[in-house]
C-alpha cells in the first residue's frame, strides 16, 4: 500500500517538474521563436523532469521520506529512463533535425538520422577505453557501462563550467576590472561608424550610376552593328568594369571596417552600462561578493592542485568534518546524528538549487547568443543533452558531499563505479579550465585598452 502512495507522490512531483520545464522552455528559451516541432519541447521537458526527480530522490534519502524499497525502485526506474533519453532519444533527434536542415539529404531524413546516431554510439562507446572507469566484473551490456561514459562526459562539462565560472564570476562582479569608458569615447566611435557608412553609401552610389550608364550605353551600342562596333563595345566596357571592381573592393574593405566598428561600439556601450550599474546599490553588493568569490576561487584552485599533487581524494564529507571540527576543537557538544541529517539536507539542497539555477541561466544566455531561427531546434536539444549529463554527473559527485549513511543508496543504484576516478578527473579538468580562463581573460583584458588607445 505504501508503495502505491509513494508512487503517486513521485508521479505528481514528476508532472510538476515537467510543467516547470515546459514553462521555462516557452517563456525563457523560445520566447522569440515559434515552436513548430512540439517534440523538441516535450523532449526538453522530459529530460528536465527526470533530472530533477533524481535530485528529489537524494533529498528524500536524507530526510528518510518514503519507504526504502520504493525509493530504491524509483531510483532504478528513473536511472533507466534518463539513460534511455540521453543515449537514444536526444541524440537521434539531434541527428534528425540537423539532417532536416541540410537540403540535399531532406528526402531520406530518417536513414541519415539513424546513420548519425550509429556514429554517435560508436564514439560514445570508444570514449570509455582510455579511462579506468570499470572494474572487470561488469559484462558488456550492463548499465554501468552506460553510466560510466555519461559520467565522464558530464564530469568534464561540470569541471569546465566550474573552472570558467569560478574565474569569470569575480572578473564580472568586481568593478576593479572595468575599463574607464566615457560618453565622448562612445560618441567618437559612433561618429566614425556613421562616417564609414557614408563612405560606403557614396561609393555604392557611384557603382549604381556607373552600372546604369553602362546599361544604357550598352543598349545604344547594341544598335551599332558591324566589326568596329563590337571592338568599341569590348574596350569601353572593359575599363568600365575594371573601375567597378576596384570600387567594389574598396566597398568590401569599408564594410568589414564598419562591422568591426559596430562591434567595438557595442562593447563600449556594454562596458558603460556596467559602470553605471556598479554605482547602484545592487552593483556595490555584487562588487563585494566579487571579492569574496575571488578568494573562494583561489582557494578552490589551491585545493585542486593539492589533491592532484598529493594524490589525495577526500575521504570524509564537509558536513562530518565540520561537525568533527566543532566538536573536537571548539568543544561544542551537540547531537551529532540529528544535526548531521539537517545540515547535510540544507547543504545538499543549496548545492542542488544553485546548480540547477546556474545551469539554466547559463544555458539561456548561451542559447540567446548563438541560436537563429534555423538552428534553434538543434541547439535546444543539444542543451537538453548537456543538461541531462550534467545533472547525472552531479549526482555522482554529490556522493562525496553526503555523510556515509546516505552514500550507500547512490553507490547501490549506480553500481560499482570507480568514484575516486571521477573526483580526480574533476579536479584535473577544473584546474586546466580555471588556469586557461585566467590566461584567456588576461589576454582579452590586455588587448582591449590597446584598441582603445588608437582612437
Amino acid at each position: 500500500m505504501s508503495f502505491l502512495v509513494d508512487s503517486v507522490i513521485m508521479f505528481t512531483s514528476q508532472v510538476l517538474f515537467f510543467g516547470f520545464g515546459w514553462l521555462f522552455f516557452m517563456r525563457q528559451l523560445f520566447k522569440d521563436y515559434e515552436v513548430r516541432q512540439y517534440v523538441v519541447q516535450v523532449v526538453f521537458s522530459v529530460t528536465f523532469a527526470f533530472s530533477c526527480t533524481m535530485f528529489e530522490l537524494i533529498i528524500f534519502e536524507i530526510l528518510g521520506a518514503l519507504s526504502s524499497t520504493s525509493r530504491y525502485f524509483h531510483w532504478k526506474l528513473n536511472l533507466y529512463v534518463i539513460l534511455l533519453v540521453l543515449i537514444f532519444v536526444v541524440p537521434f533527434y539531434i541527428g534528425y533535425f540537423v539532417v532536416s536542415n541540410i537540403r540535399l539529404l531532406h528526402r531520406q531524413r530518417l536513414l541519415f538520422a539513424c546513420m548519425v546516431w550509429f556514429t554517435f554510439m560508436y564514439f560514445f562507446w570508444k570514449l570509455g577505453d582510455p579511462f579506468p572507469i570499470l572494474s572487470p566484473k561488469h559484462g558488456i551490456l550492463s548499465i554501468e557501462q552506460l553510466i560510466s561514459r555519461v559520467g565522464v562526459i558530464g564530469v568534464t562539462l561540470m569541471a569546465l563550467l566550474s573552472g570558467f565560472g569560478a574565474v569569470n564570476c569575480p572578473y564580472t562582479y568586481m568593478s576593479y576590472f572595468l575599463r574607464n569608458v566615457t560618453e565622448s569615447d562612445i560618441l567618437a566611435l559612433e561618429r566614425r561608424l556613421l562616417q564609414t557608412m557614408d563612405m560606403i553609401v557614396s561609393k555604392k552610389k557611384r557603382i549604381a550610376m556607373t552600372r546604369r550608364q553602362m546599361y544604357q550605353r550598352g543598349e545604344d551600342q547594341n544598335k551599332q552593328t558591324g566589326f568596329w562596333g563590337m571592338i568599341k563595345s569590348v574596350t569601353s566596357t572593359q575599363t568600365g568594369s575594371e573601375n567597378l571592381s576596384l570600387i567594389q573592393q574598396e566597398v568590401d574593405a569599408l564594410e568589414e571596417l564598419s562591422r568591426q566598428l559596430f562591434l567595438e561600439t557595442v562593447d563600449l556601450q556594454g562596458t558603460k552600462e556596467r559602470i553605471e550599474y556598479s554605482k547602484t546599490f545592487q552593483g556595490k553588493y555584487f562588487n563585494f561578493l566579487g571579492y569574496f568569490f575571488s578568494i573562494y576561487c583561489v582557494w578552490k584552485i589551491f585545493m585542486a592542485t593539492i589533491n592532484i599533487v598529493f594524490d589525495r581524494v577526500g575521504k570524509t564529507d564537509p558536513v562530518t568534518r565540520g561537525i568533527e571540527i566543532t566538536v573536537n576543537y571548539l568543544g561544542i557538544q551537540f547531537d551529532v546524528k540529528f544535526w548531521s541529517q539537517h545540515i547535510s539536507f540544507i547543504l545538499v539542497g543549496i548545492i542542488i538549487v544553485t546548480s540547477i539555477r546556474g545551469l539554466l541561466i547559463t544555458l539561456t544566455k548561451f542559447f540567446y547568443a548563438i541560436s537563429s531561427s534555423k538552428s534553434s531546434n538543434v541547439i535546444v536539444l543539444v542543451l537538453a543533452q548537456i543538461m541531462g549529463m550534467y545533472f547525472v554527473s552531479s549526482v555522482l559527485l554529490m556522493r562525496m558531499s553526503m555523510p556515509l549513511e546516505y552514500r550507500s543508496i547512490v553507490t547501490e543504484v549506480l553500481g560499482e563505479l570507480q568514484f575516486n576516478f571521477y573526483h580526480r578527473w574533476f579536479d584535473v579538468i577544473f584546474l586546466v579550465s580555471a588556469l586557461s580562463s585566467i590566461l584567456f581573460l588576461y589576454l582579452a583584458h590586455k588587448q582591449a585598452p590597446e584598441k582603445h588607445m588608437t582612437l
Partner: protein
Amino acid sequence: MASLDRVKVLVLGDSGVGKSSLVHLICQNQVLGNPSWTVGCSVDVRVQDYKEGTPEEKTFYIELWDVGGSVGSASSIKSTRAVFYNSVNGIILVHDLTNKKSSQNLYRWSMEALNKDSSPTGVIVSNGDYDREQFVESTVPLLLIGTKFDQIPENKRSDVLTRTAFLSEDFNAEEINLDCTNPRYFAAGTSNAVKLSRFFDKTLSGKIGHSSTIFHRTGKRY
C-alpha cells in the same frame, strides 16, 4: 549626379527573415547567392526615377539601410543600433510568412525605430505595447513585406494572407508578399513593382516636401 540630401529608408525585421536578400533584390535586381548573417548594418543603393513618365521626372538615390539583429538583443546592442535610426524617410518592415513570431515582433521593431528619440538608453518605455495613434501621427511611410511566400503550402495561403492584411491595416501600410529567391516578383509592370515604386515616391515626396497627390492612398488591396 545630384548632390542631394540623403533619402534614407530603414529595412527592419527579425534575424533570418530575408532582409539582406530582399535589399539585394531591390537594388541589384538579382537574387543574393550566399546570404549570411548581417553584423551591424549593411547599406545598398537604389536608383529611383521619381515621377517616372511625367515631365518632372528626376533620378534619385534611395539608401536602403538593412539593420541586423533581433528585438530581444542586449540593451548595449539596441543603443548602438539607435545610431542608424537618425533622420529616416521611410521604413520597410520585413517578416517571415512561415513564422508568426516575426510578424508579432514587427510592432516592437517599429516602436524601437520611431521611439529612439524619447528613450536614450534604448529601452522601450512602452514595453512593446502597441500604440496605434503613434502610427497615424507619424509621417514616415511604412511598407510591409512578407517573405518566403513559396514555402507556404497552397491550402494555408488564404489564412496567411488574411493575417497579413490585418497587419498592414494596423501599420497603415501597403503590403507585398514574395519570395526573395525569385526575381519574377519585382519584374517591371507587376503590381509588386508598382507598390514598391509608389512607396519610394512617397518617401521622396516627404523629403522634397511636395504636397502632391501621391500622399493620397488609393486603397490597400487591388
